[in-house]
C-alpha cells in the first residue's frame, strides 16, 4: 500500500498517462524509481537534520559557543534551534508528498477490497506515518545521541525524548493541516475570481515558509544560537517570556535538567509549565491527526464550495505567454512546484540578510551573491519542463514548437532571477547600501543566465521531446540531471570568470568584457533556439 502512496505522489499525479506506452521493463524501472525518490526525500531530510545537529552542537562539544556565553545558555539556544529545524524540515518533506495522500486517490485501491472501514483507516494511518518514518526515528536518535555525547543526565534525556516527540507530533499536525487546507481550498476549489487567484498565490508563499525557515536556520545556525544566548543573558524578562514559547520552553527545560548549576527558578517553572501544556497540546494534535487521516480512509474530504460560473469566455494569449500563465497556474496548486519555483527568491532573501554583516558591497561580495542566485536559478528549467509531464500524454499532440516552449521557460526562469535581483536591491536600499553596483552587475549577468537557461532547455528538449517530460524521466536519472546542470553552470559562470580575471589585469576593461561575454553567449543561444525544429 505504501508503494502505491509513493507511486501516486511521485508519478501518477505528475507523469500523466505516459506510462501505458512503455515496455514492461520501463514501467518496472519507473516504479523502482518512485520508491527510490521517496527514499531519497527521506534520506535528504535526515542528512539535513544530522548536519544541522553537528552545526549546533559541535561547538558545545569542543569549547562552547564562545568564552562570553555560558555553556548552559548556548545549549538552550542549540536545543531550541534544533527542534525548530526538525519541525520545519519534516513539514517541508511532508508537504511534498501528503497533498496527494490527502486527496484520497490511494484509498480507491483499498475500498473495493473486503476490508472493514476500521482496517482501511488503520492502513491509511500507517501509510501516513511511513512517509516520515526515517526522519522521525533519525531525529530522535540523533538528538539523544548528541545529548549523551555532550554529557547529558538521565532526567535530561527523558525531557529530550518528550521534546523531540512533541516536535514531531507538531510537524505531523502542521503537515496535515496544510495539506488538507491546500487540497480543499486550493487544489479542488478552482474558481476564477480574484480572491481565488490571490489565495492560490498566497499559498505559494505559505509553502515556502517551511523552506525559508529551515533554510534560514541552517544558514544562520551559529548566529541564531549566539543571538539567543545574547538575549537570554541581556534581558532576564525576555528569557522568561521565551520560556513560555515553543521550542524555547523545551530548550530551557532540557538545559536545566542537564546543567543543574545556575538554574533560574522562575524560568524553570515557566518552561516546565509551558512544556507540560505543549505535551498536552501534542496529545490532542496526535488524536486529531489520527482522526483526520482516518477520515481519508472512510470517504476523504470534500472540496470547498464552487463559485457560480457566470460566463464561458476564454482569453487566448500568445503561445509562449500562455505557457508561462499555465506554469504559474500549475505551480500555484502544487506545493512541490511552488516551493522550487520561488527558491531563488528565498535564497536571495537569505543572502540579503547576510548584507547586514557587510560594511560595503564590493566586487567579491557582489559576485559571490550573484553566483549563488544564478546556481539556484539554474535548477529551475528542469523543474519547469518536468511540469509538462502533468499532461504531456495529451499536450504532446498539440502543435507546439520547441522554440515556443524554450522562450516561455527561459522568460519565466529569467524573471525569477530578476525578482531575486529586485529583492536584493530593495534590501540594499533599506540597509542604506549602494545597490547600483550589484544591480548593474546582475542585469548584465541576466544575459548569461538566460543563455545558460536556454542551453539547459535545449539539451532537455533534445532528450525528452518525444519521450515526454515526466518527472521520473528527468529527476530519476541523476547522471542526466547533472549532465544538464553542468553546461548551464559553465555558461553562467564564464562571463563572471572572465570579468573578474580582467578586473585584476586591466580594471577599465571589466565592464566591456563582462557585457560582451554575456551578450555573446545570449546571442549564440538565441540563434541555436531559433534554429530548433
Amino acid at each position, binding site marked *: 500500500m505504501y508503494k502505491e502512496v509513493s507511486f501516486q505522489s511521485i508519478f501518477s499525479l505528475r507523469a500523466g498517462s505516459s506510462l501505458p506506452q512503455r515496455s514492461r521493463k520501463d514501467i518496472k524501472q519507473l516504479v523502482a524509481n518512485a520508491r527510490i525518490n521517496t527514499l531519497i526525500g527521506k534520506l535528504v531530510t535526515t542528512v539535513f537534520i544530522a548536519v544541522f545537529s553537528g552545526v549546533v552542537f559541535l561547538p558545545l562539544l569542543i569549547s562552547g559557543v564562545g568564552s562570553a556565553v555560558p555553556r548552559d545558555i548556548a545549549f538552550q539556544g542549540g536545543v531550541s534551534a534544533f527542534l525548530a529545524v526538525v519541525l520545519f524540515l519534516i513539514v517541508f518533506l511532508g508537504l511534498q508528498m501528503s497533498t496527494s495522500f490527502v486527496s484520497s486517490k490511494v484509498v480507491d485501491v483499498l475500498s473495493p477490497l473486503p476490508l472493514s472501514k476500521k482496517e482501511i483507516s488503520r492502513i491509511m494511518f500507517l501509510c501516513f506515518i511511513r512517509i516520515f518514518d526515517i526522519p522521525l526515528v533519525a531525529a530522535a536518535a540523533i538528538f539523544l545521541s548528541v545529548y549523551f555525547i555532550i554529557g547529558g543526565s538521565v532526567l535530561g534525556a527523558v525531557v529530550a525524548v518528550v521534546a523531540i516527540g512533541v516536535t514531531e507530533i507538531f510537524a505531523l499536525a502542521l503537515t496535515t493541516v496544510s495539506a488538507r487546507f491546500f487540497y480543499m481550498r486550493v487544489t479542488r476549489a478552482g474558481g*476564477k475570481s480574484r480572491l481565488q487567484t490571490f489565495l492560490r498565490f498566497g499559498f505559494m508563499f505559505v509553502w515556502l515558509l517551511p523552506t525559508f525557515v529551515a533554510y534560514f536556520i541552517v544558514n544562520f545556525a551559529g548566529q541564531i544560537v549566539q543571538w539567543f544566548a545574547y538575549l537570554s543573558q541581556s534581558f532576564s524578562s525576555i528569557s522568561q517570556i521565551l520560556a513560555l514559547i515553543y521550542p524555547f520552553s523545551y530548550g530551557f527545560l532540557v538545559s536545566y535538567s542537564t546543567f543543574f548549576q545556575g538554574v533560574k527558578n522562575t524560568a524553570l517553572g515557566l518552561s516546565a509549565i509551558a512544556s507540560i501544556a505543549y505535551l498536552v497540546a501534542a496529545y490532542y494534535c496526535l488524536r486529531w491527526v489520527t482522526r483526520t487521516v482516518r477520515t481519508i480512509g472512510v470517504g476523504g474530504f470534500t472540496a470547498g464550495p464552487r463559485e457560480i460560473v457566470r460566463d464561458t469566455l*476564454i482569453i487566448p494569449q500568445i503561445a509562449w505567454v500562455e505557457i508561462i500563465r499555465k506554469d504559474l497556474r500549475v505551480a500555484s496548486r502544487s506545493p512541490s512546484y511552488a516551493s522550487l519555483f520561488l527558491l531563488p527568491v528565498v535564497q536571495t532573501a537569505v543572502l540579503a540578510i547576510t548584507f547586514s554583516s557587510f560594511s560595503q558591497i564590493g566586487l567579491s561580495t557582489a559576485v559571490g551573491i550573484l553566483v549563488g542566485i544564478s546556481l539556484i536559478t539554474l535548477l529551475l528549467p528542469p523543474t519547469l519542463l518536468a511540469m509538462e509531464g502533468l499532461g504531456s500524454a495529451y499536450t504532446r499532440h498539440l502543435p507546439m514548437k520547441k522554440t515556443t516552449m524554450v522562450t516561455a521557460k527561459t522568460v519565466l526562469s529569467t524573471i525569477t532571477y530578476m525578482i531575486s535581483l529586485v529583492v536584493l536591491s530593495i534590501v540594499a536600499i533599506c540597509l542604506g547600501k549602494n545597490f547600483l553596483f550589484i544591480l548593474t552587475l546582475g542585469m548584465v549577468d541576466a544575459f548569461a543566465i538566460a543563455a545558460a537557461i536556454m542551453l539547459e532547455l535545449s539539451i532537455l528538449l533534445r532528450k525528452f521531446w518525444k519521450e515526454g517530460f515526466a518527472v521520473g524521466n528527468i529527476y530519476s536519472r541523476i547522471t542526466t540531471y547533472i549532465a544538464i546542470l553542468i553546461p548551464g553552470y559553465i555558461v553562467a559562470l564564464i562571463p563572471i570568470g572572465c570579468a573578474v580575471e580582467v578586473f585584476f589585469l586591466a580594471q577599465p576593461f571589466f565592464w566591456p568584457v563582462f557585457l560582451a561575454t554575456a551578450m555573446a553567449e545570449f546571442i549564440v543561444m538565441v540563434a541555436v533556439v531559433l534554429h530548433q525544429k
Partner: protein
Amino acid sequence: METVAVKVQDLVVSYGSFVAVENLSFTVKNGEIYGLLGPNGAGKTSTIKVLVGVLEPRAGNVQIYGTPLSDEVAAKSKIGYVPEEVVLLDSLTPREFFEFVASIRRLDREVVNSRLERFVSAFELKQYFDTPIAALSMGNKQKVAVVSALLHDPKLLILDEPLIGLDARSSKILKELVTFHAKRGGAVIFSTHIMEVAEKLCTRVAIINKGKIVGEGTVADLRKLVRTAEGSLEDIFLKVTEQEAGMQDMIRALEEE
C-alpha cells in the same frame, strides 16, 4: 474529388522487444468515418498515438493531408484528438485548459469563444467551467477532452474510445457531430469496442489483431471476407480475430460454476 486525409504505410511500433504494430498500412479519405476495431492490446491505441504525434514509430510513413508527421506543427494543426485515457492538465480548470489549448493553436478569440459557447452548452459543461479538472468525474473529463478536440474545427478527428464515460445525451451529440463532420467533408478515425456503434457510425472499418490488419472495408466487404451473408459486425469481428472458436464452451463452463 476524394482527398486522402490519412495515409499510413508499413507502420511499426514497438515497446522494447515487444512489437505492438507490425507493418500496418491504410488510408482514410475525406468524408469517411474509419473505424479501428480490435481486441484489447491489438495495437489500436499505439497506431492512434503515432498518428497524433504522441508516440514515435520504429518504422513506417504517416501523412496527414499530404503533410509528413516529421513536419510536426503543420500535421498536428489539422488534427483534433480525444485520447483513450483522459489525463489532461488536471490542476487547471476547464476554462484555463481551453485557454491553454486555444493559445497553443493560435485561435482567434471571437471565433473560439463562439464555438466554445456552443460546445459547452451542448455537453452541459458550464457548471464545471471553473472547477479543477482533477475534481471532475470521468465523464466530464471526457467532455473537456472532446470539446478541446473540436475547438479549432479540425479537418481530421481522431477519437480513441470517445464514448467511454459519456452519458447518453452527450454520447448521442458526439455521434451526431462526428457524422456531420464527415458529411461536411472532414475525416474521422474512430476507435471503439462497441460493435453496434461502429456498425452504425463507420463507413469503413479496419479490424486489427496482434498488430496487423486482419480485415478492412465496409461491413458488406467484411461479410464477404468471412463468407457469410448475414451476421452482425460483432460476429464478423469474433471470426476475423479468431476469438469465436471455443468461446461458447468457455461461456458454458463459466455458467456451470
